[in-house]
């Protein structure tokens, strides 16, 4: 293990690693992100290793477990380097063929390639796949090239050079100036200019009697549907660590913390390994690369509270208290962790720092819009064909993300809305699909950037139900400290529940709106101040859905349980007994070759009948606000068909 004592040694170490690697060897990279792990990539990786050994291919092939490639929909993902051949949905059964065809005979296994759903053309190279083609992966792209648990991989692609550059040739103020000039804004949601934040923190540390302060990396990624921070910390931890070290140097602090959400065990593991390795290599700790600069990082695990992501709550949590926010000022930059000046940035923000330093702020500024520079990673999830993480330049339109990169809505359904910004954001309707995305534009339509969750909703999504979902979330996660948030979110949730049960009145809508503004204006922290956004945006863009629930007692998307009924279409039912056997509440009457009938009074609306009814029959239907007439009692299928035949003759 070489300890890097000076800047030249880093360069030498990199050359040595690269020389060691220049060989005829082919590398099979296997995505080992949490998404692919859920598909069983661990077993796949082990089987690859075993088969390679069995076939005596060890001298010819390397296997590398990499971070998340982003295209989670198609996992487990395997890329054969240096050719860049992209195999998707690879199973252990495919290994023999890959080894024989691709490794030995240098032929592509066609059936494992991605097929363009429109042109039906098979695509061989990763970067040619439409999902990747429209992206600009300056931050996230390295994930697929490196093993996050091996620092050599990171150094081989130029890792820690930005830190070396900063320590060797830049004054602290110059680093801050560079970040300011780049126009980097906080990726955690609010979009505060990072350089300015650092400058305030630096001044605060300088004027502190002991000149002590801290930096924190916020990986308490609580927004449901957002997982880019996890994938970065998990897939490329050294990039985050390097960014933090640069920030620590600029701000003038020696200690940093990474606060990781409890639900992310792999991120904790990989970041812990990375910190250990960086210390062994002399890239963290005392006298980094012989510069005299000292910096160390500790990891703190969250314990499962959404509000911990708020800066003052996060500080309380690290200090071993309940994560309750406190009023600001004083801001954390003045009085943060252990009452010392503290600078908190989100994972993605830190990850952008080395990239800006390496490529210059001028280059970074050239990407994005007037007010929002650089790229943003979004997690594109929900009713979308290509679920995954996408990194795009600021200013791209929603349409490009959802339809060009995301491949549109599955099953030929119609797009209804996209929800951005998590529980603090809003639902954006199709009128704004051509909106160029940046911090200001998203706010102007009532939503926000947030941490980058993008949940696509189609015609089968009920917007009142979505609003209820988010209010249920914020109400549960409210820390309970301030009244508007604690009581207001609960009341709002109750009104929404009433509406989804068909018991709402038009007066309720008024009350809901008034409450929403009260909670927004009077809450203590960001959680409460933004909690009403999902309600306000759905009221603004989808008021007709609320009115359908209230006035017509109807859920147009057929979601709200109290307002729907299941029926069996007698013209289609073949009397196969499947639904009857699967009904948990014995609400279906029928017999072999008899038309089945659902007894509405007994039905618990679980939808089991709809799920089990064979596709080619599709006799079970879901209706809201209308009734379907048919036989009240089961009668033989034959008899019903005859009756219907006579009717149509008439």
């Amino acid at each position: 293990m070489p300890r890097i004592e000076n800047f030249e040694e880093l360069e030498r170490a990199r050359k040595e690693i690269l020389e060691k690697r220049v060989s005829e060897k082919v590398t099979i990279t296997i995505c080992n992100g949490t998404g692919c792990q859920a598909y069983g990539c661990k077993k796949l990786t082990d089987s690859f290793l075993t088969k390679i050994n069995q076939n005596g291919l060890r001298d010819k092939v390397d296997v590398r477990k990499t971070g998340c490639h982003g295209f989670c929909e198609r996992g487990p993902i395997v890329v054969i380097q240096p050719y860049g051949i992209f195999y998707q949905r690879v199973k252990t059964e495919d290994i023999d063929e890959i080894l024989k065809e691709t490794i030995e005979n240098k032929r592509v296994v066609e059936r494992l390639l991605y097929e363009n759903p429109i042109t039906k053309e098979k695509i061989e190279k990763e970067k040619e796949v439409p999902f990747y083609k429209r992206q600009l992966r300056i931050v996230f792209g390295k994930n697929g090239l490196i093993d996050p648990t091996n620092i050599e991989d990171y150094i081989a692609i130029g890792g820690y050079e930005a830190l070396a550059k900063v320590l060797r040739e830049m004054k602290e103020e110059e680093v801050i100036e560079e970040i300011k000039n780049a126009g980097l804004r906080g990726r955690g949601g609010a979009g505060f200019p990072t350089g300015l934040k650092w400058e305030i923190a630096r001044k605060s540390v300088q004027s502190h009697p002991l000149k002590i302060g801290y930096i924190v990396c916020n990986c308490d990624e609580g927004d449901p549907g957002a997982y880019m921070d996890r994938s970065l910390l998990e897939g490329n931890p050294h990039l985050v660590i390097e960014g933090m070290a640069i920030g620590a140097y600029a701000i003038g602090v020696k200690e940093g913390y990474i606060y990781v959400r409890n639900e992310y065990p792999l991120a904790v593991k990989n970041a812990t390994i990375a910190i250990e390795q960086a210390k062994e290599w002399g890239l963290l700790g005392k006298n980094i690369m012989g510069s005299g600069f000292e910096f160390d990082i500790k990891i703190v695990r969250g314990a499962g509270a959404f509000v911990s992501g708020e800066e003052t709550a996060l500080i309380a949590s690290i200090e071993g208290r309940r994560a309750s926010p406190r009023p600001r000022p004083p801001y954390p930059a003045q009085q943060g962790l252990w009452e010392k000046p503290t600078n908190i940035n989100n994972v993605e923000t830190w990850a952008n720092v080395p990239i800006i330093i390496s490529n210059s702020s001028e280059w970074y500024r050239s990407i994005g819009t007037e007010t929002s520079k650089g790229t943003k990673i979004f997690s594109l999830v929900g009713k979308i064909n290509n679920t995954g993480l996408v990194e795009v330049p600021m200013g791209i339109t929603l349409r490009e993300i959802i339809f060009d990169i995301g491949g549109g809505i599955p099953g030929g359904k119609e797009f209804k809305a996209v929800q951005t910004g998590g529980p603090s954001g809003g639902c954006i309707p199709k009128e704004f699909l051509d909106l160029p995305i940046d911090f200001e534009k998203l706010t102007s339509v009532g939503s926000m950037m947030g941490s980058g969750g993008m949940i696509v909703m189609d015609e089968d999504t009920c917007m009142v139900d979505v609003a209820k979902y988010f209010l249920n979330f914020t109400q549960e996660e409210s820390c309970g400290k301030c009244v508007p948030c604690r009581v207001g979110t609960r009341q709002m949730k109750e009104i929404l529940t009433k509406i989804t049960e068909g018991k709402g009145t038009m007066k309720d809508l008024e009350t809901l709106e008034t409450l929403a503004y009260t909670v927004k204006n009077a809450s203590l922290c960001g959680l409460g101040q933004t909690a009403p956004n999902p309600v306000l945006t759905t009221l603004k863009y989808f008021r007709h859905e609320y009115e359908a629930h209230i006035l017509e007692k109807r859920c147009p998307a057929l979601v709200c349980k109290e307002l729907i009924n299941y029926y069996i279409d007698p013209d289609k039912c073949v009397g196969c007994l499947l639904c009857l056997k699967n009904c948990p509440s014995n609400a279906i009457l029928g017999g072999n070759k008899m038309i089945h009938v659902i007894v509405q009074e007994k039905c618990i609306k679980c939808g089991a009948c709809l799920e089990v009814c064979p596709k080619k029959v599709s006799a079970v239907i879901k209706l809201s606000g209308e009734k379907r007439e048919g036989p009240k009692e089961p009668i033989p299928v034959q008899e019903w068909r005859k009756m219907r035949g006579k009717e149509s003759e008439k």
Partner: protein
Amino acid sequence: MGLDYSQIVNGIIEKYNGRKEAIIPILQDVQSELRWLPPEAISLISKRLKISESNIYSIATFYKSFYLKPRGEHVVTVCMGTACHVRGAPKILEEFERKLNIKEGETTKDHKVTLECVNCVGACALGPIVIVNEEYHGQMTKVKVENILENILKKG
């Protein structure tokens, strides 16, 4: 009565040099050993760290990841993230609740299965997703719910 947890608890407290502010990681480590936080263990921590029991309970009840009741042999976690929600997670939860005859957050009487929810596990491509004893099951349907339960109950 009460079991003697002192060895485990003391060992963990030592690891953190008995620092009061390490209360959250201490509780996390104790829980990962014991699978829950028994009152006896909390009482021990309280005495060692000189933090009142009420204070420890205020922390343990605030954060979702602490369990003050013993958990079942098998833990079924249903993801309730937004992506899973729009793909039908509530119905999957209902199915588990009905089949196990318990509500979210409860454990079956025979201590076999605990049913829990989580806000998002970040494996949204597989939604709706259920995690059974750390194993991921994606694109859940009611039929798959039945298979999962059959499997774990068979194992006993």
